[in-house]
């Protein structure tokens, strides 16, 4: 802070926070430049993996044009063992409008760098991440969380889930006291 000069009036000069390091101030909304540069992504899947992916891709193509729509991308990634957030997928797709989500289609070659991006994500969740995330709600520190509380969390935080989704998820997970052993729960989740 500036040493006290003999300033009588407090100068309303708000010290400007240091300008953000790299980013230039974004003036007008940029044309939808891809937030992720897919062309720079090196696709590094094995031949076996490519076979798997091609097969799944074929299953998802309901139109028969060897493409899938934007709004199928998240699901096919999940089918292939990934767990991207919706936000991550949207970013990879260039933050598409609802119309684009429904109508834009990509072919297998276009899909691969998208999948690779998710596979490469350094922030991918691990067993420990999930357990630690749930441990926050373990009030008694005994390895369980209240099913009811977990349901509320899933509906109100993060990428909110719908009640029907939550019901399906939680089926058979609560004990007679309505408690969930979250380590077992996470193991179960990760087993498929």
């Amino acid at each position, binding site marked *: 802070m500036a040493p006290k000069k003999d300033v009588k009036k407090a100068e309303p000069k708000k010290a400007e926070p240091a300008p953000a390091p790299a980013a230039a101030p974004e003036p007008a909304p940029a044309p939808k430049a891809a937030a992720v540069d897919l062309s720079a992504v090196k696709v590094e899947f094995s031949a*076996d*993996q490519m*076979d*798997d992916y091609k*097969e799944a891709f074929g*299953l998802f193509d309901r139109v028969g044009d060897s493409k899938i729509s934007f709004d199928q991308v*998240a*699901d096919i990634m*999940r*089918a292939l*063992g*990934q*767990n*991207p*957030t*919706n*936000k*991550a997928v949207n970013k990879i797709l260039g933050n598409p409008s609802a119309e684009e989500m429904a109508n834009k289609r990509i072919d297998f070659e276009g899909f691969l760098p998208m999948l690779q991006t998710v596979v490469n994500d350094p*922030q991918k*969740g691990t067993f420990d*991440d*999930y357990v*630690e*995330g*749930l441990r*926050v709600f373990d009030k008694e520190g005994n390895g369980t969380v*209240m*099913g*009811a*509380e977990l*349901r*509320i*969390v*899933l509906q*109100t*935080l*993060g*990428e*909110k*889930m719908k009640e029907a*989704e939550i019901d*399906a*998820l939680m089926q058979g997970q609560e004990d007679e006291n*309505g408690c969930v052993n979250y380590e077992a729960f*996470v193991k179960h*989740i*990760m087993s*498929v």
Partner: protein
Amino acid sequence: MDCRNAQRSQPQDEDIMDIPLDDPEANKAAAKIQASFRGHMTRKKMKDEKPREEVHKKQRERK
């Protein structure tokens, strides 16, 4: 305050107040967990809908 939780068992009011709605870290952690849940449910659904031995076989081999 009960009407808020009409359906389910009654979490204490304190529990609700504890839920850090605005905490970015909590939301980030929640989103990560939800992503794993969604992944799991999609895979489970596909397994149930398409019990093709071939698909399973490849899945096992991939691991």
